[in-house]
Protein backbone atom coordinates (compact mmCIF):
# COMPACT_ATOMS: atom_id res chain seq x y z
CA UNK A 1 0.00 0.00 0.00
CA UNK A 2 2.93 2.35 0.66
CA UNK A 3 5.13 4.05 -1.87
CA UNK A 4 8.20 6.15 -1.26
CA UNK A 5 7.63 9.63 0.16
CA UNK A 6 9.91 12.49 -0.90
CA UNK A 7 9.79 16.07 0.30
CA UNK A 8 12.13 18.55 -1.35
CA UNK A 9 12.76 22.14 -0.29
CA UNK A 10 9.44 22.63 1.49
CA UNK A 11 8.97 26.23 2.56
CA UNK A 12 6.12 27.77 4.52
CA UNK A 13 5.83 31.37 5.62
CA UNK A 14 3.16 33.08 7.69
CA UNK A 15 3.66 36.72 6.76
CA UNK A 16 7.28 37.56 7.52
CA UNK A 17 7.70 34.51 9.69
CA UNK A 18 9.35 31.58 7.93
CA UNK A 19 8.06 28.49 9.71
CA UNK A 20 9.54 25.90 7.35
CA UNK A 21 12.85 26.97 5.89
CA UNK A 22 13.35 24.32 3.21
CA UNK A 23 12.66 20.81 4.47
CA UNK A 24 14.17 17.85 2.61
CA UNK A 25 13.02 14.45 3.74
CA UNK A 26 12.51 10.99 2.25
CA UNK A 27 10.67 8.06 3.79
CA UNK A 28 11.05 4.50 2.56
CA UNK A 29 7.87 2.41 2.28
CA UNK A 30 6.89 1.18 5.74
CA UNK A 31 9.31 3.51 7.49
CA UNK A 32 8.23 5.09 10.78
CA UNK A 33 9.66 8.52 11.41
CA UNK A 34 9.15 10.52 14.60
CA UNK A 35 9.65 14.28 14.68
CA UNK A 36 10.62 15.91 17.94
CA UNK A 37 11.61 19.42 18.87
CA UNK A 38 10.62 22.51 20.83
CA UNK A 39 7.14 24.03 20.47
CA UNK A 40 6.68 26.48 17.61
CA UNK A 41 9.46 25.00 15.57
CA UNK A 42 7.38 23.94 12.56
CA UNK A 43 6.75 20.25 13.32
CA UNK A 44 2.97 20.43 13.07
CA UNK A 45 3.17 22.87 10.17
CA UNK A 46 5.27 20.34 8.26
CA UNK A 47 2.55 17.72 8.67
CA UNK A 48 -0.20 20.19 7.79
CA UNK A 49 1.69 21.24 4.66
CA UNK A 50 1.98 17.62 3.53
CA UNK A 51 -1.81 17.44 3.68
CA UNK A 52 -2.24 21.02 2.36
CA UNK A 53 -4.20 22.03 5.45
CA UNK A 54 -1.61 24.79 5.32
CA UNK A 55 -0.54 25.57 1.78
CA UNK A 56 3.26 25.44 1.36
CA UNK A 57 4.86 28.36 -0.44
CA UNK A 58 7.49 26.32 -2.25
CA UNK A 59 8.89 22.83 -2.58
CA UNK A 60 7.84 19.50 -3.94
CA UNK A 61 5.92 16.66 -2.31
CA UNK A 62 5.94 13.20 -3.86
CA UNK A 63 4.01 10.20 -2.56
CA UNK A 64 4.35 7.07 -4.63
CA UNK A 65 3.86 8.06 -8.26
CA UNK A 66 2.18 11.36 -7.39
CA UNK A 67 4.42 14.42 -7.39
CA UNK A 68 3.09 17.89 -6.58
CA UNK A 69 4.86 21.22 -6.98
CA UNK A 70 3.61 23.12 -3.93
CA UNK A 71 3.69 26.55 -5.53
CA UNK A 72 1.68 25.43 -8.55
CA UNK A 73 -0.62 22.85 -6.96
CA UNK A 74 -4.09 22.80 -8.47
CA UNK A 75 -7.24 21.81 -6.60
CA UNK A 76 -7.00 18.39 -8.23
CA UNK A 77 -3.38 18.00 -7.02
CA UNK A 78 -4.40 18.91 -3.49
CA UNK A 79 -7.29 16.43 -3.46
CA UNK A 80 -5.07 13.70 -4.91
CA UNK A 81 -2.43 14.32 -2.26
CA UNK A 82 -5.00 14.31 0.54
CA UNK A 83 -6.41 11.05 -0.73
CA UNK A 84 -3.00 9.42 -0.28
CA UNK A 85 -2.47 10.67 3.25
CA UNK A 86 -4.32 9.98 6.48
CA UNK A 87 -4.23 12.71 9.11
CA UNK A 88 -4.67 12.15 12.83
CA UNK A 89 -5.38 15.37 14.68
CA UNK A 90 -4.25 16.38 18.12
CA UNK A 91 -7.83 17.26 19.12
CA UNK A 92 -9.35 14.19 17.34
CA UNK A 93 -11.59 16.37 15.10
CA UNK A 94 -14.21 13.67 14.69
CA UNK A 95 -17.26 14.70 12.69
CA UNK A 96 -19.57 15.74 15.51
CA UNK A 97 -22.73 15.02 13.53
CA UNK A 98 -21.78 11.44 12.78
CA UNK A 99 -21.46 8.26 14.81
CA UNK A 100 -18.14 6.45 15.20
CA UNK A 101 -19.07 4.08 12.35
CA UNK A 102 -20.17 6.96 10.11
CA UNK A 103 -16.91 8.79 10.85
CA UNK A 104 -15.03 5.80 9.45
CA UNK A 105 -17.41 5.37 6.51
CA UNK A 106 -17.48 9.00 5.39
CA UNK A 107 -14.24 9.02 3.41
CA UNK A 108 -15.08 5.69 1.78
CA UNK A 109 -18.59 6.62 0.65
CA UNK A 110 -18.23 10.33 -0.11
CA UNK A 111 -14.66 10.46 -1.38
CA UNK A 112 -13.99 6.96 -2.69
CA UNK A 113 -17.53 6.25 -3.92
CA UNK A 114 -17.93 2.94 -2.06
CA UNK A 115 -21.40 1.55 -1.41
CA UNK A 116 -22.74 2.13 2.09
CA UNK A 117 -22.83 -1.61 2.68
CA UNK A 118 -19.16 -2.16 1.82
CA UNK A 119 -18.10 0.92 3.75
CA UNK A 120 -20.07 -0.17 6.83
CA UNK A 121 -18.46 -3.63 6.69
CA UNK A 122 -14.97 -2.11 6.55
CA UNK A 123 -15.81 0.41 9.28
CA UNK A 124 -17.04 -2.36 11.58
CA UNK A 125 -13.91 -4.37 10.88
CA UNK A 126 -11.70 -1.41 11.83
CA UNK A 127 -13.83 -0.63 14.89
CA UNK A 128 -13.14 -4.17 16.09
CA UNK A 129 -9.40 -3.75 15.41
CA UNK A 130 -9.29 -0.58 17.49
CA UNK A 131 -11.25 -2.19 20.31
CA UNK A 132 -14.46 -0.25 19.76
CA UNK A 133 -16.59 -2.90 18.10
CA UNK A 134 -19.46 -2.11 20.44
CA UNK A 135 -19.33 1.69 20.02
CA UNK A 136 -20.17 2.00 16.33
CA UNK A 137 -23.44 3.81 17.02
CA UNK A 138 -21.98 6.22 19.57
CA UNK A 139 -21.59 9.89 18.76
CA UNK A 140 -18.21 11.50 19.59
CA UNK A 141 -19.74 13.52 22.42
CA UNK A 142 -20.58 10.28 24.21
CA UNK A 143 -17.03 8.88 24.05
CA UNK A 144 -13.93 9.38 26.19
CA UNK A 145 -10.93 11.26 24.80
CA UNK A 146 -9.04 8.01 24.29
CA UNK A 147 -11.95 6.43 22.44
CA UNK A 148 -12.37 9.51 20.26
CA UNK A 149 -8.70 9.50 19.33
CA UNK A 150 -8.88 5.80 18.49
CA UNK A 151 -11.81 6.57 16.16
CA UNK A 152 -9.73 9.43 14.72
CA UNK A 153 -6.95 6.96 13.98
CA UNK A 154 -9.50 4.46 12.62
CA UNK A 155 -10.83 7.12 10.25
CA UNK A 156 -7.33 7.58 8.84
CA UNK A 157 -6.82 3.79 8.67
CA UNK A 158 -10.07 3.31 6.74
CA UNK A 159 -8.64 5.14 3.74
CA UNK A 160 -5.61 2.82 3.43
CA UNK A 161 -3.45 5.91 3.08
CA UNK A 162 0.07 5.50 1.75
CA UNK A 163 1.34 7.88 4.40
CA UNK A 164 -0.19 8.39 7.83
CA UNK A 165 0.46 11.69 9.59
CA UNK A 166 0.07 11.88 13.36
CA UNK A 167 0.03 15.39 14.77
CA UNK A 168 0.76 15.04 18.49
CA UNK A 169 -1.90 12.36 18.82
CA UNK A 170 -1.71 12.13 22.61
CA UNK A 171 -1.15 15.78 23.58
CA UNK A 172 -4.80 16.56 24.24
CA UNK A 173 -5.48 13.35 26.16
CA UNK A 174 -5.81 12.89 29.90
CA UNK A 175 -2.89 10.74 31.08
CA UNK A 176 -5.20 7.78 31.68
CA UNK A 177 -6.02 7.54 27.95
CA UNK A 178 -2.51 7.98 26.52
CA UNK A 179 -1.54 4.32 26.84
CA UNK A 180 -4.42 2.92 24.81
CA UNK A 181 -3.77 5.36 21.96
CA UNK A 182 -0.04 4.65 21.87
CA UNK A 183 -0.77 0.91 21.89
CA UNK A 184 -2.96 1.35 18.83
CA UNK A 185 -0.32 3.36 16.96
CA UNK A 186 2.24 0.64 17.81
CA UNK A 187 -0.04 -1.98 16.26
CA UNK A 188 -0.47 0.09 13.10
CA UNK A 189 3.30 0.55 12.92
CA UNK A 190 3.73 -3.21 13.11
CA UNK A 191 1.57 -3.46 9.98
CA UNK A 192 4.29 -1.89 7.83
CA UNK A 193 2.49 1.46 7.50
CA UNK A 194 4.62 4.44 6.45
CA UNK A 195 4.10 7.06 9.12
CA UNK A 196 5.30 10.45 10.23
CA UNK A 197 4.61 11.20 13.88
CA UNK A 198 5.02 14.50 15.64
CA UNK A 199 5.24 13.67 19.32
CA UNK A 200 6.31 14.90 22.72
CA UNK A 201 6.43 11.31 24.02
CA UNK A 202 10.17 10.67 23.87
CA UNK A 203 9.97 7.12 25.16
CA UNK A 204 7.34 6.33 22.52
CA UNK A 205 9.44 7.90 19.76
CA UNK A 206 12.45 5.88 20.89
CA UNK A 207 10.47 2.68 20.90
CA UNK A 208 8.37 2.97 17.74
CA UNK A 209 10.46 4.95 15.26
CA UNK A 210 12.96 3.66 12.73
CA UNK A 211 14.30 7.19 12.56
CA UNK A 212 13.95 10.27 14.77
CA UNK A 213 14.19 13.80 13.43
CA UNK A 214 14.99 16.79 15.60
CA UNK A 215 13.62 20.08 14.24
CA UNK A 216 14.30 23.61 15.37
CA UNK A 217 13.67 26.98 13.72
CA UNK A 218 11.89 25.43 10.75
CA UNK A 219 14.83 23.20 9.83
CA UNK A 220 15.85 19.61 10.36
CA UNK A 221 18.81 19.92 12.69
CA UNK A 222 19.67 16.28 13.14
CA UNK A 223 18.25 12.87 12.37
CA UNK A 224 19.12 9.25 12.89
CA UNK A 225 18.08 5.98 14.46
CA UNK A 226 16.60 6.44 17.96
CA UNK A 227 19.63 4.87 19.64
CA UNK A 228 21.92 7.38 17.97
CA UNK A 229 19.77 10.49 18.40
CA UNK A 230 18.77 9.80 21.99
CA UNK A 231 22.06 8.22 23.03
CA UNK A 232 24.68 10.11 21.06
CA UNK A 233 23.25 13.32 19.58
CA UNK A 234 25.82 15.29 17.58
CA UNK A 235 24.28 18.76 17.64
CA UNK A 236 24.34 20.98 20.72
CA UNK A 237 20.75 22.07 20.13
CA UNK A 238 19.55 18.46 20.08
CA UNK A 239 21.42 17.67 23.27
CA UNK A 240 20.07 20.81 24.98
CA UNK A 241 16.50 19.90 24.00
CA UNK A 242 16.86 16.30 25.15
CA UNK A 243 18.27 17.49 28.48
CA UNK A 244 15.28 19.79 28.96
CA UNK A 245 12.66 17.12 28.23
CA UNK A 246 14.58 14.18 29.60
Amino acid at each position, binding site marked *: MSGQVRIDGLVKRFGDNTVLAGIDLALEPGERVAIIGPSGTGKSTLLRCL*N*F*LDRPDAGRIAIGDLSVDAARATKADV*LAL*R*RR*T*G*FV*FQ*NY*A*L*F*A*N*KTARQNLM*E*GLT*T*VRGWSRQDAAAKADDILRQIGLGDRGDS*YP*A*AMSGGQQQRVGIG*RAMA*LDAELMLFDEPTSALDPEWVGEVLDLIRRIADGNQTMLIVTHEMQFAREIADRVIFMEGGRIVEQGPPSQLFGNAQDDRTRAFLRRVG
Partner: protein
Amino acid sequence: MRALDLGYMWDLVPVIAGYVPLTLFMAIVSMLAALVLASLLAIVRVQRLPVIDRVVALFISFFRGTPLLVQLFLFYFGLPQVLPALEGINGVSAAIFGLTLHFSAYMAESIRGAIIGVDRSQWEAAQSIGMTQSQLLRRIILPQATRTVAPTLMNYFIDMIKGTSLAFTLGVTEMMGAAQKEAAGSFLYLEAYLIVAIFYWVIVEALSVGQRALEARLGKAVAR
Protein backbone atom coordinates in the same frame (compact mmCIF):
# COMPACT_ATOMS: atom_id res chain seq x y z
CA MET B 1 -68.93 49.03 28.04
CA ARG B 2 -70.56 46.24 26.01
CA ALA B 3 -70.00 42.54 26.50
CA LEU B 4 -68.09 40.43 23.97
CA ASP B 5 -70.42 38.87 21.44
CA LEU B 6 -69.23 35.30 21.93
CA GLY B 7 -71.87 33.91 19.62
CA TYR B 8 -70.59 36.09 16.78
CA MET B 9 -67.03 35.02 17.53
CA TRP B 10 -68.06 31.37 17.40
CA ASP B 11 -69.75 31.98 14.05
CA LEU B 12 -66.50 33.48 12.73
CA VAL B 13 -64.45 30.38 13.57
CA PRO B 14 -65.36 28.41 10.42
CA VAL B 15 -65.05 31.56 8.29
CA ILE B 16 -61.50 32.31 9.43
CA ALA B 17 -60.62 28.60 9.47
CA GLY B 18 -61.43 28.48 5.76
CA TYR B 19 -58.49 30.83 5.12
CA VAL B 20 -55.95 28.96 7.25
CA PRO B 21 -54.80 26.84 4.27
CA LEU B 22 -54.02 29.98 2.21
CA THR B 23 -52.06 31.52 5.10
CA LEU B 24 -50.10 28.30 5.61
CA PHE B 25 -49.55 27.91 1.86
CA MET B 26 -48.04 31.39 1.58
CA ALA B 27 -45.90 30.85 4.69
CA ILE B 28 -44.63 27.37 3.76
CA VAL B 29 -43.84 28.21 0.13
CA SER B 30 -42.09 31.43 1.20
CA MET B 31 -40.16 29.60 3.91
CA LEU B 32 -38.93 26.83 1.60
CA ALA B 33 -37.91 29.31 -1.09
CA ALA B 34 -36.27 31.57 1.50
CA LEU B 35 -34.35 28.62 2.96
CA VAL B 36 -32.88 27.70 -0.42
CA LEU B 37 -32.08 31.31 -1.30
CA ALA B 38 -30.67 32.10 2.16
CA SER B 39 -28.41 29.02 2.10
CA LEU B 40 -27.01 30.07 -1.27
CA LEU B 41 -26.51 33.65 -0.11
CA ALA B 42 -24.82 32.43 3.08
CA ILE B 43 -22.45 30.15 1.15
CA VAL B 44 -21.53 33.00 -1.19
CA ARG B 45 -20.73 35.17 1.82
CA VAL B 46 -18.76 32.45 3.64
CA GLN B 47 -16.73 31.64 0.52
CA ARG B 48 -16.23 35.36 -0.19
CA LEU B 49 -16.69 34.89 -3.91
CA PRO B 50 -15.37 38.03 -5.58
CA VAL B 51 -17.90 40.59 -6.92
CA ILE B 52 -20.91 38.40 -6.24
CA ASP B 53 -20.17 38.71 -2.51
CA ARG B 54 -20.59 42.49 -2.81
CA VAL B 55 -23.88 42.08 -4.66
CA VAL B 56 -25.16 39.69 -2.00
CA ALA B 57 -24.10 42.06 0.78
CA LEU B 58 -26.07 44.85 -0.92
CA PHE B 59 -29.11 42.60 -1.33
CA ILE B 60 -29.03 41.64 2.35
CA SER B 61 -28.52 45.25 3.42
CA PHE B 62 -31.52 46.46 1.39
CA PHE B 63 -33.95 43.74 2.46
CA ARG B 64 -32.98 44.00 6.11
CA GLY B 65 -32.93 47.78 6.02
CA THR B 66 -36.42 48.44 4.66
CA PRO B 67 -39.85 47.47 6.05
CA LEU B 68 -41.59 44.39 4.70
CA LEU B 69 -44.71 46.42 3.92
CA VAL B 70 -42.70 48.84 1.78
CA GLN B 71 -41.12 45.91 -0.08
CA LEU B 72 -44.53 44.31 -0.73
CA PHE B 73 -45.89 47.60 -2.12
CA LEU B 74 -42.79 47.94 -4.29
CA PHE B 75 -43.30 44.49 -5.79
CA TYR B 76 -47.06 44.73 -6.19
CA PHE B 77 -47.67 48.37 -7.10
CA GLY B 78 -44.26 49.80 -8.05
CA LEU B 79 -42.27 47.35 -10.14
CA PRO B 80 -45.12 46.44 -12.57
CA GLN B 81 -45.02 50.09 -13.73
CA VAL B 82 -41.50 49.61 -15.10
CA LEU B 83 -41.37 45.84 -15.64
CA PRO B 84 -44.15 44.74 -17.98
CA ALA B 85 -43.48 41.10 -17.06
CA LEU B 86 -44.81 41.82 -13.57
CA GLU B 87 -48.04 43.38 -14.81
CA GLY B 88 -50.96 41.36 -13.62
CA ILE B 89 -49.01 39.68 -10.82
CA ASN B 90 -51.55 38.51 -8.27
CA GLY B 91 -51.43 39.43 -4.61
CA VAL B 92 -50.56 35.93 -3.42
CA SER B 93 -47.56 35.69 -5.74
CA ALA B 94 -46.38 39.18 -4.81
CA ALA B 95 -46.70 38.35 -1.11
CA ILE B 96 -44.75 35.09 -1.50
CA PHE B 97 -42.10 36.90 -3.54
CA GLY B 98 -41.78 39.68 -0.96
CA LEU B 99 -41.76 37.36 2.06
CA THR B 100 -39.15 35.15 0.42
CA LEU B 101 -36.73 37.96 -0.37
CA HIS B 102 -37.27 39.75 2.93
CA PHE B 103 -36.78 36.72 5.15
CA SER B 104 -33.99 35.22 3.05
CA ALA B 105 -31.90 38.29 3.86
CA TYR B 106 -32.31 37.74 7.60
CA MET B 107 -31.94 33.98 7.35
CA ALA B 108 -28.78 34.26 5.23
CA GLU B 109 -27.03 36.15 8.00
CA SER B 110 -28.14 33.61 10.62
CA ILE B 111 -27.04 30.67 8.45
CA ARG B 112 -23.73 32.39 7.70
CA GLY B 113 -23.16 32.85 11.42
CA ALA B 114 -23.96 29.18 12.07
CA ILE B 115 -21.59 28.03 9.30
CA ILE B 116 -18.77 30.20 10.62
CA GLY B 117 -19.53 28.91 14.10
CA VAL B 118 -18.77 25.29 13.17
CA ASP B 119 -15.40 24.47 14.69
CA ARG B 120 -12.44 24.94 12.36
CA SER B 121 -11.32 21.37 13.09
CA GLN B 122 -14.46 20.03 11.39
CA TRP B 123 -13.49 21.78 8.14
CA GLU B 124 -9.93 20.54 8.38
CA ALA B 125 -10.92 16.95 9.18
CA ALA B 126 -13.18 16.90 6.13
CA GLN B 127 -10.46 18.42 3.94
CA SER B 128 -7.89 15.97 5.27
CA ILE B 129 -9.81 12.96 3.97
CA GLY B 130 -10.02 14.53 0.52
CA MET B 131 -13.53 15.97 0.46
CA THR B 132 -14.25 18.69 -2.06
CA GLN B 133 -15.59 22.02 -0.82
CA SER B 134 -19.16 21.15 -1.79
CA GLN B 135 -18.91 17.70 -0.18
CA LEU B 136 -17.65 19.08 3.10
CA LEU B 137 -20.32 21.78 3.18
CA ARG B 138 -23.10 19.31 2.37
CA ARG B 139 -21.97 16.38 4.51
CA ILE B 140 -20.28 17.97 7.52
CA ILE B 141 -20.71 21.71 7.90
CA LEU B 142 -24.33 22.44 6.91
CA PRO B 143 -25.79 19.59 9.03
CA GLN B 144 -23.96 20.95 12.07
CA ALA B 145 -24.88 24.54 11.25
CA THR B 146 -28.50 23.46 10.88
CA ARG B 147 -28.59 22.26 14.47
CA THR B 148 -27.35 25.64 15.67
CA VAL B 149 -29.57 27.72 13.45
CA ALA B 150 -32.79 25.65 13.63
CA PRO B 151 -34.34 27.55 16.56
CA THR B 152 -33.64 30.87 14.84
CA LEU B 153 -35.11 29.64 11.56
CA MET B 154 -38.22 28.44 13.36
CA ASN B 155 -38.58 31.92 14.85
CA TYR B 156 -38.36 33.38 11.34
CA PHE B 157 -41.02 30.93 10.18
CA ILE B 158 -43.27 32.10 12.98
CA ASP B 159 -42.61 35.71 11.98
CA MET B 160 -43.34 34.74 8.40
CA ILE B 161 -46.72 33.24 9.29
CA LYS B 162 -47.63 36.47 11.01
CA GLY B 163 -46.13 38.41 8.11
CA THR B 164 -48.61 36.81 5.68
CA SER B 165 -51.24 39.01 7.29
CA LEU B 166 -49.74 41.92 5.33
CA ALA B 167 -50.91 40.23 2.13
CA PHE B 168 -54.34 41.68 2.84
CA THR B 169 -52.89 45.09 1.97
CA LEU B 170 -52.32 43.68 -1.54
CA GLY B 171 -55.97 42.72 -1.79
CA VAL B 172 -55.50 39.07 -0.80
CA THR B 173 -58.28 37.64 1.33
CA GLU B 174 -56.41 35.50 3.81
CA MET B 175 -57.12 35.17 7.54
CA MET B 176 -56.56 38.85 8.30
CA GLY B 177 -58.36 39.97 5.15
CA ALA B 178 -61.36 37.79 6.02
CA ALA B 179 -61.48 39.19 9.55
CA GLN B 180 -61.26 42.74 8.14
CA LYS B 181 -64.19 42.10 5.79
CA GLU B 182 -66.30 40.55 8.53
CA ALA B 183 -65.58 43.43 10.89
CA ALA B 184 -66.44 46.01 8.25
CA GLY B 185 -69.84 44.39 7.81
CA SER B 186 -70.70 43.80 11.44
CA PHE B 187 -68.81 46.70 13.09
CA LEU B 188 -67.78 44.13 15.74
CA TYR B 189 -64.09 44.90 15.31
CA LEU B 190 -63.00 43.57 18.68
CA GLU B 191 -64.57 40.15 18.13
CA ALA B 192 -63.29 39.83 14.56
CA TYR B 193 -59.72 40.84 15.33
CA LEU B 194 -59.66 38.87 18.57
CA ILE B 195 -60.69 35.67 16.83
CA VAL B 196 -58.08 36.12 14.09
CA ALA B 197 -55.47 36.84 16.77
CA ILE B 198 -56.41 33.58 18.49
CA PHE B 199 -56.05 31.72 15.19
CA TYR B 200 -52.51 33.04 14.69
CA TRP B 201 -51.67 32.27 18.29
CA VAL B 202 -52.89 28.66 18.07
CA ILE B 203 -50.97 28.07 14.83
CA VAL B 204 -47.77 29.47 16.34
CA GLU B 205 -48.18 27.44 19.54
CA ALA B 206 -48.68 24.26 17.49
CA LEU B 207 -45.46 25.10 15.64
CA SER B 208 -43.61 25.62 18.89
CA VAL B 209 -44.40 22.04 19.87
CA GLY B 210 -42.97 20.92 16.52
CA GLN B 211 -39.95 23.15 17.10
CA ARG B 212 -39.12 21.45 20.40
CA ALA B 213 -39.40 18.01 18.78
CA LEU B 214 -37.12 19.10 15.93
CA GLU B 215 -34.53 20.53 18.29
CA ALA B 216 -34.53 17.33 20.35
CA ARG B 217 -33.93 15.31 17.17
CA LEU B 218 -31.16 17.57 15.92
CA GLY B 219 -29.53 17.63 19.35
CA LYS B 220 -29.10 13.86 19.37
CA ALA B 221 -25.47 14.02 18.21
CA VAL B 222 -24.37 16.15 21.13
CA ALA B 223 -26.33 14.28 23.81
CA ARG B 224 -24.34 12.00 26.06
